[in-house]
């Protein structure tokens, strides 16, 4: 089971990683400031395999790819939300961070609770209930399966 960190509606990319940290040399240096304004302890507490669960429109705002990148670097297994903002969604798949649309999970799990994500089956289980997640278009699933856009391009080139 994975620990769940729960966030609300319209979490913007400034809240995921604020602009002033984008000037740090790399993602490793930035990741400690993830969700600084919303949840100052998140970056130090989150563990490999944990899940971020959110309501509608997760990742709205800027195009910064550092937003999904810091989550991935902290070991977040996937972000599961009712819906995602467009650029965040594309960026996540391009860097190989699973972004899962599931309408039911949000109301079925508490912050700090537990859930089990089965990426292959496309299901998530919490509180004894299992929900199915919306499937990615095949094109995007292929990029994600390859581990991101770079790996996918390299694979095509072979």
């Amino acid at each position, binding site marked *: 089971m994975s620990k769940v960190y729960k966030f609300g509606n319209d979490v913007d990319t400034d809240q995921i990683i604020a602009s002033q940290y984008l000037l740090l040399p790399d993602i490793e240096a930035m990741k400690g400031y993830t969700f600084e304004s919303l949840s100052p302890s998140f970056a130090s507490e989150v563990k490999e395999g944990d899940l971020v669960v959110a309501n509608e429109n997760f990742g709205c705002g800027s195009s910064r790819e550092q937003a999904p990148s810091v989550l991935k670097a902290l070991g977040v297994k996937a972000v599961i939300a009712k*819906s995602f903002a467009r650029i965040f969604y594309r*960026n996540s798949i391009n860097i190989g961070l699973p972004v899962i649309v599931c309408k039911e999970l949000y109301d079925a799990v508490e912050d700090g609770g537990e859930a089990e994500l089965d990426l292959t089956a496309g299901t998530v289980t919490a509180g004894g209930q299992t929900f199915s997640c919306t499937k990615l278009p095949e094109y995007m699933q292929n990029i994600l399966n390859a581990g991101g856009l770079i790996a996918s391009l390299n694979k095509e080139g072979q």
Partner: protein
Amino acid sequence: MGHTVIEKIIQKNTGAAVVKPGDIVTVNVDRVMIHDIFIPFVADKFEEMGFQSLWDTDKVVLIYDHLVPTSAVEDVRHFKIGDAFVKKFGVKHVHRSDGICHQLMTEAGYAKPGDIVFGTDSHTTTYGCVGCFSSGIGYTEMAAILGTGEMWIRVPETIKVQIDGTLPDNVYAKDVILRLLGDLRADGATYKALELCGSTVDNMSVASRMTISNMAVEAGAKACLFRPDEKTCAYSGVPLSDVDWIYGDADAQYCKVLTYKAEDLTPVVACPSQVDNIHNVEEVAGTELNQVFIGSCTNGRLEDLKVAAEILDGKTVACKCIITPASRKIYMEAIEAGYMETLAMAGCIITQPGCGLCCGRSGGILCDGETVLATNNRNFLGRMGTSKVGIYLGSPATAASSAIAGKIVVP
């Protein structure tokens, strides 16, 4: 069956006879824009992908604006990496201190009607003001375009926004887009295109249309398109006969239609800390301000500075009032027109064109408990300093009037 503007642009670009929403297609990119914050990451990914050269050196535009002028020594690293990338790969178009990327892309003619353009910034939707399909992407995807010239996209559904009539004297394009964001909400146009039409829109300047297309992404929109007209052609330097195919057909399929009567619109502000938290200015009138900000790629054009100068003429600001023209060209035109003198006489602080304050980097950042009324595009937590700064977004007229009072007032 007819087509929306974005469907027509994609069809022309790909040579496909018909595209429909939901189709995944690969487009040939007409131009890309990269700015100084993300160039180190783009350069990194480009090399990691193993590309040896750019697909077309003429189609790449690099613009330094977020860090101009620098406010910390680390900023210089971005310019060094950018300059090295330009030298190594022969990027043809580089702007080091000419203004904000979203202003320069149409002003310098890089993004034209009917083009498909991507940029490493969410406000890339701005170029829809001239009938260009433009959208923001991340740096990994940008690196892939630099090597291939191609990008896959999902053909979006279109929301039509019809606005007819004459706007009241104190209502501007900024009030129009804020009202629209309040009605659509922050995710109301996610994955979709907006198409603006009607007599109010036809009567708007290209600059006013830019204010609207710039902020369309705040509703999640992938693009925000206007039909090019004589004004567009004069601005973009193209003949009308080249662009007369760019319009939404009467029988095009829209997923939603919003209709407004211009006379019903009022001056509004986005209240802290969501862009869709829209209220009439009079509801928050009297809110004390520490600072006013007039400028940015949303509202830093000549018509915005003109409105501010007319309101501030002979007056003195009661709080800090920062003015940031969107480009050097606009800066010089505003000097020529006497606006800058008027604004300086009123006590305003005039800055170099750039993104500093809007991205919370430099040039007027605020601290806990302070309140600012600003004309830029985002009022997110922590956007202009600490997360306890209250940011209101409004039109240049609301901002200038409020600067005189030191509190929010109806223009």
